[in-house]
């Protein structure tokens, strides 16, 4: 936010001045000042404890419930004042951010209040006779609040260049839908607060906020636990591959490349998440292959080759008990299948190979070729792309190859840089089963 573009400054200024106009020029007839102050305090508290969802980008907070309670209790202008009160949020925040947030909440509250009144909602503590029909204008008010709030924030993001306008099918709708649904849920709560405001007054606040405080606390724990899980998984995967000096970081990079491909193909966030794990775990079964076979210079005997061919199955056996992996399991088991059916372990052909396996296979080969091996230097990304294109159709699925290439061209790629080991402590392999450009050689045969 330090160097705000001019357009963004103008935008923030426009939003802020509109909000101030609304607050200053609005009519305050029939608004109970005590209620207004209490709701505003409630709103500031709720906003201050807003929960950050795991990405840290979009915050879910119970504050919209307070804002919508204001819509019912103190009407559009009151809601605008309450929204503006969020400038006073008890958190470190730059002044521009404070003003913008306050202003956009004020406008959203004003719009919601206006919609509520247009559809026949009465301002003030709801009476018994108002239910259940008050729910209709209130729902419309929630939608108006969500739409205005979303549009104003998206506008700022667009001016800041954080988001680009994308074709509809490229936007991942699911997280957006989840976020909206939850904010509608919080909004409904506003009616709730307004309804019992007449019965227990500010006591209502405690009762309403308690489950939400607890939900937020649990959600924080969930996020922490999820980070811990990911850190542990990554560490254990790396522990498995420390045996070979040159393959360090391989699993993390395959995981990253697989996720790139999956995103490029427009998969759901959940599947992208799963394939991240699959990529990380794909070579875990390599541990079942004796080290001397993996690192053998020269040609392999039939038995040794059979031992290498076993590693996807071994990996599958290790991780099959991890419940959430489901689709990833197939990816791990079949990541060495080839489109022409000459792969292992089962020799599946074409589209019989699970989608995840086709993705991991490309990502695996890509990372192998772009990183240094003891018997050759790292290839450049463009060389690797040529090689991948050459193998597309026979070894790799052309769709996945294209997806990887366009993702890499857009996002760039940071290959693992490995300095050659300076002593003889580290063990190094003389060949790599993942390397399509240097296939494993078998005794008594040409190339495989």
């Amino acid at each position, binding site marked *: 936010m330090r160097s705000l573009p001019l357009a963004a400054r103008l935008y923030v200024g426009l939003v802020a001045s509109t909000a101030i106009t609304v607050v200053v020029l609005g009519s305050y007839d029939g608004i109970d000042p005590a209620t207004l102050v209490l709701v505003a305090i409630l709103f500031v508290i709720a906003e201050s404890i807003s929960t950050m969802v795991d990405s840290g980008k979009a915050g879910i907070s119970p504050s919209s419930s307070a804002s919508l309670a204001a819509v019912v209790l103190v009407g559009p202008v009151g809601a605008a004042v309450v929204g503006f009160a969020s400038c006073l949020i008890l958190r470190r925040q730059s002044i521009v951010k404070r003003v913008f947030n306050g202003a956009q909440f004020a406008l959203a509250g004003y719009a919601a209040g206006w919609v509520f009144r247009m559809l026949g909602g009465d301002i003030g503590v709801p*009476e*018994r006779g108002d*239910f*259940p029909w008050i*729910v209709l204008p209130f729902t419309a008010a929630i939608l108006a609040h969500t739409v205005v709030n979303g549009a104003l924030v998206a506008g700022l993001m667009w001016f800041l260049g954080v988001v680009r306008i994308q074709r509809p099918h490229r936007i991942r709708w699911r997280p957006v839908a989840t976020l909206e649904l*939850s904010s509608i*849920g*919080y909004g*409904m*709560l506003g009616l*709730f607060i307004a*309804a*019992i405001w007449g*019965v*227990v007054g500010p*006591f*209502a606040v*405690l*009762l*309403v906020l*308690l*489950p*939400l405080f*607890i*939900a937020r*606390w*649990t*959600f924080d*724990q*969930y996020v922490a*636990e*999820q980070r*811990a*899980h990911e*850190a*542990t*998984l*990554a*560490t*254990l*995967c*790396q*522990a498995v591959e*420390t*045996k070979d000096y040159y393959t360090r970081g391989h699993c993390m990079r395959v995981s990253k490349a697989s996720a790139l491909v999956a995103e490029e193909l427009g998969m759901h966030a959940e599947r992208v998440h799963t394939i991240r794990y699959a990529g990380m775990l794909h070579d*875990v*079964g390599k*541990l*079942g292959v004796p*080290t001397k076979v993996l690192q053998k210079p020269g040609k392999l005997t039939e038995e040794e080759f059979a031992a290498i061919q076993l590693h996807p199955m*071994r990996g599958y*056996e*290790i*991780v*099959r*008990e*991890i*419940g*959430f992996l489901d689709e990833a399991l197939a990816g791990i088991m079949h990541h060495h299948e080839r489109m022409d059916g000459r792969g292992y372990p089962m020799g599946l052909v074409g589209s019989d190979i699970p989608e995840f396996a086709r993705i991991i296979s490309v990502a695996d080969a890509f990372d192998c070729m772009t990183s240094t091996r003891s018997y050759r230097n790292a290839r450049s990304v463009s060389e690797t792309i040529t090689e991948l294109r050459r193998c597309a159709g026979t070894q790799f699925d052309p769709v996945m190859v294209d997806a990887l290439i366009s993702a890499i061209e857009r996002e760039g790629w940071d290959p693992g840089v490995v300095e050659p080991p300076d002593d003889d402590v580290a*063990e190094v392999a003389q060949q790599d089963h993942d390397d399509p450009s240097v296939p494993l050689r078998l005794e008594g045969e040409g190339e495989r």
Partner: protein
Amino acid sequence: MITTLGSPLKEEPKRAAQPRNRIDPARSVVIVAAVTCAVGSLLWTLFTGFVDPDVALAFGVLIAVGELARITLPGNREVAPIASAGAIGYTFLLDVGGDPVNHSAWQVIAVVSVGIALGALPHIAVGRAPRWSDLARRGLVVVLIALAFRPFAERMSPDSQHWWLVLCVMAALVMASWLVDSGVAAAIRAERLRTRLSVAIRDESRAQFALGMAIGSSGILIALASTVTGLAGLLVFTAPLLVTQVAFRRYAEIRLTYLQTVRALSRVTEVGGYVETGHSRRVSRLAHAIGCEMGMRESELLALEYASLMHDIGQLSLRSPIASGATVLASPREQRRIAELGSAVIRETGVLDSVAELVRRQCESLHGDGDDGPPPLGSRIIKVANAFDDLVGESTDRDRVEAVLQRLRMDTGHEYDPDVVETMARVLDRPAARW
């Protein structure tokens, strides 16, 4: 010493999975009490007649749906927050949209029982039986509150000037019932895991506190708000608790996933041929049983479980597997190196420091090797369980187990913790299914 024990007897049948035919007194008492209350109230209400059937129906449906959406929290605790909140709401209900309601405590219990039963049926139909003790506890909480509150409900008019007093009574009742419920849950847990009651009470109240408060406040809220919004509000009222439930469910899922991941990846040492098949799993099971019996807290037990699953992970850094993978037979220096390597790997995660510490000190003798004093209890347990499993393996031969126990006892002076060894002997004395 080892040769006297003979070779591992692989062909022996595994410990037969025994049916759960044991009778736990506390658990049985709770279930019988709940069933008696439910059936009794149902019959009594059928006999004397229902009042306000539409209200009963609405809350019954809410309870059934909540029960259908039950979740399992870490530690195998089954909860149904929405059903519980609905039940508490129905108990505290004084007025629906201006019309006072006068259902008796017996009717409350009957409606809640029917709701819970209807919600549980689909689960049972597809073979997911509920945890009967948790189900019974959900019912009993309502029995307690209803019997204490309903007889005086008529005196609490919603329009009186003393609203805050009614609120306080409700909050106090919820707190009291929550305390009783934690006690009951702890008794059942202590019985099941053979841990100490005081430890179980602390674990249970810690595990249930947050959700209990959310359920309680939502229940009170539902009851109070119904006076204004009527039954149509019920849908809206469950929304905040739904958010809480979703958060808890996701938390429970990630905890389970975490455990599954560590369990699965602890097997890489087996697949790599470093240790015998099933070693980590057996050591972790044995260590967990010993830890329970020695009164470790739930959080400590989790760290112990992780540490014992990963205690051999340091072997991955060895150039070649040590003979037969049994660390107990390796030289002290080698054991120490494996422990330190493993601990370094685990510390790398940045989140499992206590686990790494347990792994690092797993091979130290009873009084400690360095200046750090004696190793923590978890490390001493892992040391004993690991030695036992290295020497016994999959065998269930009583003589062999006795011989190994004898050998460990001879070393209790300076190597093994005598308390841990004796606890292990007690654990091994029980049928395997009761660990």
